[in-house]
Structure formats: C-alpha cells, structure tokens
C-alpha cells in the first residue's frame, strides 16, 4: 500500500475551508474564479451552513451560528448582510437553544450601526426575529403578552439608562473601578455608545433628532423613577426649543410620563411650565393644560401660582373652555389646597360687592370651580369644609361645572347635590341622588359605560328638568302679576328680567320643540312685561311721556312682540293660539283705550279676534277665559256700560305648558367674502350685485319672504321665490345674487340687509301703498347684516 504522502504544510488553510464548508463543496481550491472574488467564499460557505442547518448537520446550530457570526464581522458588506440572513435562517429552522438567540441578537445589534444599508436592514430583520423567538419563549413561561419593545427595553439596566442621560461617567455603586497594578482604573462603561446619548440628542442641530430624543426620553421614563426624574430636567430645558415640533413632542413626552405617574414637578420647573400655559401657540397651551391636570404639585405656593396662571390664561382666551376642566382636575387632585382656596373665596363672595356682578369675572368662576372640586377629591375631611355659600353660587355655574367635570357626573345629580348642600329643597327626589357626602368621580376605566348610560338618560331627564324649571318660572310670573300693583315696579321688572334670562339659558341648552317653546315663552314674557309697563303708565296717566317708556312706543313694541309670536312659530296647538289671541285682544283694547275714539280699524281687529277665539273654543275642548268672555260681552254691547280700564284689569297671563310640536321659524343670512377690511366694489349709480347665502328653517311654502336692503334712506325690497331654494321642508337654503339698484354717489357705503316675512295672521291692516314691497305688517326673521361696499375708483 504505497500512498505518496504530500507535503501538506501549505494546505492547512485549504483543509480548514474544506472542513468548515462541509461536504457540499468538495474542493474549493479547484474553483479558481470563485476564490479570486473574496466575497464569494463567504456566501458559498454561508449557503453551505444554511443547508447544513436544514439538514441538521452534526455541527448543530451553535457551530453554524458561531461561524456565521464570525463572517458577519468581515470587511465586505455583502458578506456581512448575507451572514445575518444566514443567522436568520438558522434561527428560523433550528430549535434554537438559549444562547443562540442571544448570540444572534448580539451579532445583529453590533451591526445596527453598520455603514452599509443592506447590512443594517438585515440586522433589523434579525433583531425582529430574535424578539419573536424570545417572545415565544417567554410566552411559554407565562407572560406571553409582553410586547417586544418593552421586553427589550427592560433588558437594559437602570445604570445604562442613567448613563444615557449624562455625559459624565456615572460610577456604579458596586466596585467603583478596579485597581490594577496599584493604579486605579476608571470603571468601564458597559455600553459606551449609550453614554450621554440623550444629552447629545437633545442638543442636536437637527430638530428631527431632538424630537426623537424627547420621544424616547418620555417612553423610557416608565422604566425607572430615577431616570424619569433626570429625564424631566432635560425635557424641561427643551421647552425653550426654537422648533415648535420639538416643544410639542416634549409636552407629549411629559404627558406620557404623567400618565404613567412618573412626573413630579419641582418648584424650579414651575416658571417654565406656567409660561407654557400662556404661550401664544394654542396647541402648546392645550398640551400643557393636559399635563397640568395630571400632575401632583407638592406645595401650596406652586398650586396657587398654577391656578393664578390658569386664570390669567382664561382671561386672555375666554373661548378656551377646557381651562375649566383643567381647573377642576387640578383642584380635585389637590383637595387640601383647594379647600384653602374655597375658604378664601367664601369670604370674598360674602363681602358686599358694590353692585358688581362678581360671578361674571373669570377669576371668580375659576375659583368657584376649584372650590367645588374639593367635593370630588379623595380627601374625606375637606368635603365637609366647603362653605355653603360656595354651593349656592355654584348652582348658577352648573353648566360650566358639569362641563368641567366631564361626562362623569350628569348635570341633574350635580344640581341635586348642590341644592342639598345649600339647603334648597330640590323638587325631584326621584332623581338619582348620590351618596350623602358627595358625588364620587370614577376612575378613567369605568367612565365609558357610564357615559353611554348617561347619554341615553340625559335627554329625557333634561326635558323633565327643563319643564320643572319652566313651571316654576311660570308660577313666579303669575305670582308677580298678582302682586304687581302692591310692589315696586322695579322689583317686578327685575323678576321678569331674571325669568327671561333663565328661560334664555334653558333655551340655549335645548333643541327641537322644547327649544322652540322656551323661546316662545321668552317672547310671551316680553309681552307680559310690556303689558305691565303699559298698565303702569295708564295708572300714572303720563301719556305725554316721551322716550322708550311712552305708551305709544310700548304699544308698538307689544304689537311687534305679538306679531313675532304669531308668525315666528309654526305648529301651534289650540291652547297656545288662544293665548296669543288673548294677548292680541288685550293689545287692541289698549289701542282702543289709547285712541279714545272707537277707531274702525281697531274695532275690526277686535271683532276678528273675538271671532277667532269663538271659533277656537267652538267645539268645547277649550274654554274662553273670563277676560275674553267679558270682552266679548262688552264688544257685543258696543262697549256701552263697560269701562275699558276695568276690562283691562281682568287680563291675567296664564301661559300654557303644553306645547305640542312647536317649531321655530327662523332664517339665516350670510354674505360671502365681505367684511370691513374686504369690501366689495361698485360703480356709483350702477346696480351692484350682493352675493348672499340664505338658509331658512321651518318656512312653509305659503310664507312670503322678502329681502330688505337699506342704504341710508333708500329701502329696497326684493321678493324671494321659495321655489328656488333647495333642501327639505325643515331646512331650505340657497346661494343667490341679488342686485341692489340705488347705489349712492359716495365713495363707500354700508348696506343693511335683512330677511323679512309678511305677517298675514289676522292682519286687518292698512294696505300700504307700496308697489314693490311686502303688504301688511312684517317681521324680521334674521339679524340685520352689514354689507360693505367701496367705489371702484377709490380703491
């Protein structure tokens, strides 16, 4: 057996290649060209490894991973990328034992900052795969729902986290450096690349980097309290950044921290923080408020300054109603401090104010809300300390307060609670009353179902509550009517005004027929007030009185008011119509008494009214009031033996509360692209086009609408063809261009446009001799609108 032995000293490398690339590459040395490209053998090898993995070669995944890991540190990017893909393949196929995943992960992390994009891509993919593997593994240990990133984050120790914030080397608590050969060696950083990464990041030249740094700071804060504290310092500095995006991101990060409860504001941060509340930028203000609503302020001084700044902000930006809810939550979070505020406020309110309406001041409103919030705080002791006067004032701010609280507690229970604390008996005991000590505010988690429930019940509850208030208002009005003679007229006026005010507030909060009814009732009270005034002027017999209290003017006002009631509402039921007719009857009677002579016109009107009333009550479902019956009698007797003034005294307002399907007729007029700054142009003396957008509510096809345009003394009426309006029966709208002819010879003018409606209802009126205009009396449906014009030459 003679085998010629080779001098094998030079083929060591060859052998090693052959051994590591297994049997699939029989003789790599034969492949001349492949050897000449240095990148190729890696790939070659790698595929071999991949194949080995799938075929379960005896080397096992460890060996392959080891081999691939070493390739991944090579100098050729293609090879590195391929090695990472190989690792991924091994991970996927093999039932990877513990160390392998970590090894792959380490390998991939090491190449995260590679200069080649392909390598970075591959490394990210490998990391994702590692995360998957780890997840499934941990999942089998019982916490499978752990999110990948969280898990990876938690693998980072607190020391590394803290180091990432500081450029200075933080010495670990244990073993501060080792002593080698008598010299102290500074402690080695575990991840040198992490050192001061955020300290650099937030100072970067590019705002994108700063934004990302802020975001990460916020996200990492929940992992360590100490970290959060230090991150806060950095983040606070970022509030002065010159880029808005960075500031917003910073606030978002802080909000994130606050939600996780790792935000403790210190006194040194307050100035910065409060400055943001009065920032020019609305979104910054909003974000800051959100945070403020969540944080805990350790000192009374801080709390007070926060409240003060919120009030300043409220005074500056009255439209930002969210401030109230922030005030509420800040107050609620600091029960002790709020109780303190409440005491001071109670003193202030109780002091006699010089006729000033202190409740209108934003400051008082804000402080009231803060004081009320004590009742909702967790602190049991303070709840009893709130002075009663606070609650009685709070009732008037019910709407604001319930808005501020959010949907957690509905308005009714809040009201009942306030009433109970004030000692005012609340009508409806059936309303869901809360526990005697105070309403409890639920945590965020169980708000949702409550809101859903409340939304359903609120609507009907609202209506019930509104009607209760309406009833009590009507009672008040009736009572006032009876005492009007014995009482000072000023008091009567006050009461009526207050009632109207209240109705108006109720009306603004309701919609549909309830809303319509409430505004109708407002008109009715207007009329009642005019009647009271007229009666009084008759009493005093100052018929020569001039100005707004002169009987003529009052009478005219009453007429208008009645006309509005007649025409601006649709869907009257019989009761309501009788009511309006009685008012009209009374108004005519006034006219009769005023004129003295029995004017034919007034008598005609009276006749018409009486007939109408008769007609309404003909079927016996309604009964004529005593007043109407007496008038009828007197009218039949041609007022012989009847003193008109005694007749007048018979009137008694009795508004009905049954309103059926009442609807408000209204209209809205808008002009396009026109304001004092941006006037439309015209040529003197030539007609000019007025481009209008008109929307109508509940207008029936019988109604006759006109557009009235007034410039100085000239009035132009234009009839509006309802057929040209689009929309349904309820809401109609159209954009139209209407010419205005009588442009003045001036360099500019203001045109006052208004939508008016002919008032056909029972109008036995003088026919106006006007060709182009509405016949009979009219009512204004919309507010008067100013349209600005400027002469072309002067522009």
């Amino acid at each position, binding site marked *: 057996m003679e085998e010629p032995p080779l001098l094998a000293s030079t083929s060591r490398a060859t052998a090693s290649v052959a051994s590591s690339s297994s049997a699939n590459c029989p003789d790599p040395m034969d492949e001349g060209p492949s050897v000449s490209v240095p990148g190729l*053998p890696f790939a070659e090898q790698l595929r071999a490894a991949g194949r080995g993995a799938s075929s379960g070669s005896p080397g096992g995944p460890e060996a392959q991973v080891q081999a691939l890991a070493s390739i991944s540190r090579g100098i050729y990017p293609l090879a590195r990328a391929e090695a990472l893909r190989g690792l991924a393949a091994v991970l996927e196929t093999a039932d990877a034992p513990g160390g392998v995943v970590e090894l792959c992960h*380490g390998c991939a992390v090491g190449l995260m900052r590679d200069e080649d994009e392909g390598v970075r891509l591959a490394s990210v993919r490998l990391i994702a795969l590692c995360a998957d593997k780890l997840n499934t593994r941990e999942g089998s240990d019982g916490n499978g729902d752990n999110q990948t990133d969280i898990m990876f984050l938690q693998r980072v120790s607190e020391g590394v986290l803290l180091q990432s914030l500081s450029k200075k080397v933080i010495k670990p608590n244990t073993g501060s450096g080792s002593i080698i050969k008598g010299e102290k*060696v500074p402690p080695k950083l575990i991840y040198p690349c992490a050192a001061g990464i955020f300290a650099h990041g937030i100072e*970067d030249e590019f705002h994108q980097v700063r934004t990302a740094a802020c975001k990460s700071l916020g996200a990492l804060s929940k992992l360590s309290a100490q970290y959060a504290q230090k991150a806060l310092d950095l983040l606070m*500095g970022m509030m*002065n950044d010159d880029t808005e995006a960075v500031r917003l991101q910073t606030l978002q990060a802080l909000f994130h921290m606050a939600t996780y409860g790792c935000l403790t504001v210190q006194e040194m941060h307050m100035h910065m923080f409060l*400055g943001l509340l009065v920032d020019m930028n609305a979104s910054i203000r909003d974000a800051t408020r959100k945070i403020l609503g969540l944080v805990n302020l350790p000192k009374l001084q801080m709390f007070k300054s926060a409240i003060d700044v919120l009030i300043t902000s409220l005074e500056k930006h009255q439209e930002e109603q969210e401030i109230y809810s922030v005030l509420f939550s800040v107050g609620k979070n600091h029960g002790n401090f709020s109780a303190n505020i409440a005491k001071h406020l109670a003193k202030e309110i109780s002091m006699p104010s010089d006729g000033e309406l202190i409740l209108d001041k934003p400051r008082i409103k804000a402080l009231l809300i803060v004081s009320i919030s004590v009742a909702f705080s967790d602190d049991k002791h303070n709840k009893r300390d709130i002075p009663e006067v606070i609650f009685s004032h709070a009732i008037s701010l019910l709407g604001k307060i319930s808005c501020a609280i959010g949907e957690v507690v509905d308005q009714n229970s809040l009201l009942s609670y306030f009433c109970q604390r004030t000692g005012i008996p609340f009508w409806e005991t059936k309303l869901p009353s809360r526990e005697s000590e105070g309403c409890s505010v639920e945590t965020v988690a169980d708000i949702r179902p409550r809101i859903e429930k409340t939304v359903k019940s609120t609507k009907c509850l609202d209506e019930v509550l509104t009607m209760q208030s309406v009833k009590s208002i009507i009672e008040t009005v009736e009572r006032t009517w009876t005492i009007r003679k014995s009482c000072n007229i000023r008091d009567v006026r006050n009461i009526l005004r207050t009632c109207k005010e209240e109705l108006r507030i109720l009306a603004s909060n309701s919609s549909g027929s309830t809303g319509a009814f409430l505004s109708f009732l407002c008109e009715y009270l207007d009329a009642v007030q005019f009647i009271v005034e007229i009666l009084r002027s008759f009493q005093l017999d100052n018929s020569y009185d001039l100005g707004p209290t002169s009987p003529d003017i009052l009478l005219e006002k009453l007429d208008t008011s009645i006309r509005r009631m007649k025409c601006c509402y649709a869907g009257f039921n019989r009761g309501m119509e009788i009511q309006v007719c009685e008012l009209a009857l009374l108004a005519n009677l006034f006219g009769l008494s005023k004129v003295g002579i029995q004017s034919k016109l007034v008598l005609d009107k009276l006749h018409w009214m009486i007939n109408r009333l008769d007609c309404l009550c003909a079927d016996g479902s309604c009964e004529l009031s005593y007043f109407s019956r007496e008038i009828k009698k007197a009218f039949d007797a041609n007022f012989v033996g009847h003193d008109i003034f005694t007749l007048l005294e018979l009137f008694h307002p009795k508004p009905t509360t049954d309103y059926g399907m009442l609807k408000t007729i209204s209209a809205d007029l808008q002009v396009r692209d026109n304001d004092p700054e941006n006037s439309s142009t015209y040529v003197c003396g030539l007609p000019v086009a007025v481009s209008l957008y008109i929307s109508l509510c509940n207008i029936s096809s019988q109604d006759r609408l006109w557009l009235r345009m007034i410039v100085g003394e000239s009035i132009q009426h234009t009839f509006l063809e309802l057929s040209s309006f689009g929309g349904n029966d309820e809401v109609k709208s159209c954009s139209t261009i209407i010419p205005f002819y009588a442009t003045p010879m001036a360099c500019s003018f203001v045109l006052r446009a208004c939508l008016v409606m002919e008032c056909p209802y029972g109008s036995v009126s003088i026919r106006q001799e006007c060709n182009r205009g509405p016949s009979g009396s009219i009512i204004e449906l919309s507010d008067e609108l100013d349209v600005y014009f400027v002469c072309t030459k002067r522009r």
Partner: protein
Amino acid sequence: MAIECLVLGAGQEVGKSCVVVTFGGGKRVMFDCGMHMGHRDSRRYPDFDRLLADGAADYTAAISCVVITHFHLDHIGALPYFTEVCGYHGPVYMTYYDCAALVYPFQQYPTKALAPLMLEDYRKVMVDHRGEEEQYSYEDILRCMRKVIPLDLKQTIQVDKDLSIRAYYAGHVLGAAMIYAKVGDAAIVYTGDYNMTPDRHLGAAQIDRLKLDLLITESTYAKTVRDSKHAREREFLKAVHKCVSGGGKVLIPAFALGRAQELCILLDDYWERMNLKIPIYFSAGLTIQANMYYKMLIGWTSQKIKNSYTVHNPFDFKHVCHFERSFINNPGPCVLFATPGMISGGFSLEVFKKWAPSEKNLVTLPGYCVAGTIGHKLMSGKPTRIDIDKDTHIDVRCQIHQLSFSPHTDSKGIMDLTEFLSPSHVILVHGEKPQMAFLKERIESELGMQCCYPANNETVSIPTSQNLKINATEKFIVSFCMDETENDPQKQNLNFGGDMPQGCRTEGVAEGVLLMEKSKTPKILREDELLHSLGMETHFVHFEPLHPSSIEVKHTGESAVQQSSLEHLDCE
C-alpha cells in the same frame, strides 16, 4: 521623517494662540497668530524670532503659509504686527464663504470680514483709551487684510506642490474652522477653537474621518463636562421675565459677536412665544454692525437658521429696536444689550451707573470676566458699593444673574473628537496646565494615544510613519480570509453562550513572504507561490521506506537521524 511642532503661544495657557508645524521637506505652517490680552509688554505677541533660529533669511522664507482659524483676537491679534511690522509677505489664509446673493466680495469671508472690525476696535481701545503706544495702524490692518487669501469649507488648497490645507466647520463662532494640513504622508489637524454642541445660531463642529499623525486640539475645558445648556437658558429666561414683569430693566453687557446674537435669538423667540411687548434694545455700534454681517454670512450658521432663512432672516429680530442714548432714563421695563461685555467701560458702564441702584433691575453677566473689571467685582460676591474712582461710586442694589454660554467644547467633546479622528499623537494647547495634565492622562489611558502639552516656545518632535504600498497575490488574500473563519472547536465550545462570540478574529495575523525586488513594487505572497515567482523549480523530497522488517525495535531518535541522512541522500 518627523513633524516638528513649535508652540509659540497658548502653550499651557489661554491666549496668543500660535503653533508652527514643520513638516518634512522644509514645509512650515503657522496656525493662528494671536495676541495675549493679559500682557502689555513683549509677551503680548508670540516670540516670532524663534522662527529665524535655524538660519532663515526672513519670515517669508521661514514660513510657507499662515492659517487663521477665526477672528478672535487671541487667534488673529498679532497678524497685522507679523505681516506689517515683522514683514511677513507669504500667503495668509482665512475662511471664505461663497454666496451668490452677496454683492461685495469683501464681505463674503466671515473671518476676513469680521477680523478688521475686531482688530480696529481693539486698536482703538488700546491707543485711544489706554494711551498706549501704537503697535500697528488702521492702514496696517487694511494692508494686512489685502494679503489674505480666502478659504472655503472643505476646499482643498494646494499651497505649493507638497503642502495642501483644508478647512472644516468648527462651530465656536461665525467663520471658525479646523484646519487639516498634509505634506506627503504626514497629516495633521489643528482645531483652533471649536464646539461640538450646536448653539442656537451655530452648528456643531464637523470633520471627516482622516488618517492623522498629529492632532493639535484646544483644551479650554480639559476637565469640565458641561451639562445641557438648556437649564441655564431656562434660568436666564426666568430671571429676565421676572424682572421685566416687575417693571425692571435688564442690562446684558455682551461682546459684539457671538454671545449677543445667541442671547438675542433666545430672547426674541421667547418674546414671541410669550407675546411680550417689552422692547429689546441693541446699543449702537458694533452690535448692530455685527448683526448685519451675521445676516450676510448665514451659510455659516446652524441648520435651523439656514432653513428658516429662506422664509425670514432670523437676525432680523422682531422685537429688537435701536437704542437711543436718551432712553436710559425712560421709565418702564426694557432689555438692553450693551458693549463692552465685562462692563469695563464705555456704554455698558454708563448704563450700569444709571440702573444699578434700583433693586428692580437686573444685570446679566457672562461666564467669564477679566479681573479688575466691574463685571468681575460683581461676580465675586455681591457688592453693595462699587468705587469707580476716588470720587464716584455706585450703589449696587440690582440683581445679578450670571450666565455662561461657552462656545468651547467640553472634555467629552475633546475626547469624542480625538477618538473619532484617532491620530497617533495628540498635542493639547489653549488650556490650563493642571487640567491639561488630567486630559493627557485620559487620552493616554482610554484612547491609547500619545499625548503632550508643551509649554510656550517648546518644540515637540513627532515621528511619522511612512506608508509603503505593497501588492499581494490573490492566493495570499484568499488564504488570509480563510484563516479568519478557521475555528478551533475547543475554543468555540468554551466561549459559546457568552455575549460576544470570541472564536473569530477581526484582525488576524497572516503569514506570508514579502518579496522586495529592485525597481518593482514590493509584493506579499504565500509560501507556496514563492518558488514559482522566483522562477525556481520545486524539489520534492521523497522518503523511501527502509526495510522496517529487518530491524525490529529501534529508538525514535535514531530513526530521525536515519531519516535526515536519507534526506541528504535523496536530495538532488
């Protein structure tokens, strides 16, 4: 071959930066030509005579070129003296910014544009106020500036056949640059002053990864690691806001360039956000003029300012108005920037006299004030009374706020830059001795580089490595690469499961034969290629089996002897 580095100034001190580097082949570059503000005698200028020590006829022959990094006086102050008085006529380089929008060529070079401003200002102070002997005239400054050759960022300038220089952005101040110089294989970087963290108006220093023999770096903050300046900004804004909302006046004494703009951007932005209507004033003179230059040299500023420049010039401050002398006594709050920075005299002193007695007012001082100035007195303790001279004194009741925005990089920044550039040697200048010693230790122990910090007029010689290009055969490379993946199974098992797979090498040792032939590039090749390339034949040694049957037992030693004897026999 070696690089000789002669430190003429800023060796173990701050002031009169001047380093002369001699490359092989007689190339000599002077980096910076500054003056010392603390001395009034001959020590104020670098000792230029030393340049003539080795027998050069004049300075022009001794120095290949002068490169100025930026316009601060401790970097440029001695230049007119050197060119006009000492008579250097060689090239002088300063940074250049080319912008088509700029009309006047003279105003395109930040350092060149701002330098005469600074020099003339200083000359005036020296001659007119202190009554000193004039070292150079205004005409000298202008003549000197005419010699200056502009230098653009990242532009390689071939000074002569061998010497090339290139400037990199250094932050620090408008137009500041780091200089890379190369002669043959020897390359160095002189940083000048630089800042690794961006400002509101300047970016961070940027440089390529270069292969360097020597890095000469400033080390103002050799030991200090600065924390984020955001906290200081916050405090500053808080103090100013508090003061003006209380109806007080704020005096900010500032040098014309750099800090004033930085603070003004900060305040203007804050004013905008907080919707404050209180006026911010710039005192007349240098500051407004400097603002004008800043507006023109926008390309040298930070990213944010460059970006916003297309829409709005950030140096057109919205809330800043011009100050009239008569405003000093106006009632109501205001903020005033006034020169000079350390309240050493001039307008800021005038205003200080008026405003200091009210406790409502605030004076914001820079981080560093020269001893003897009022600024220094205010910083050291809180004096209630300052005597200006025998007759006049000021009652100081106002608040004092100290604010240091240093445009120098900190210890971490120096370490980062050094690590990034990885030079073989580091020389520290522009710093204080004890701190420099500390930094030297760190650089040597952590980065493993040789480091020194010579005193003034000391020369350091640094050996340079000479690069030799060699070729390598394919087979050698292949075998080297294969070597790398070779795994020792035992070692592998030991290390497995650890964080880092240590079985592989990133840097391996390869064995081969270096073949150097006359007139040919040296070549490295594998052992088995050697004979072939030498044109020799391969000789194989065959071992003949020697009748093992006849000899039953033999010692191995003897067989070895036998084998070797056989070798002799068989070898042809």
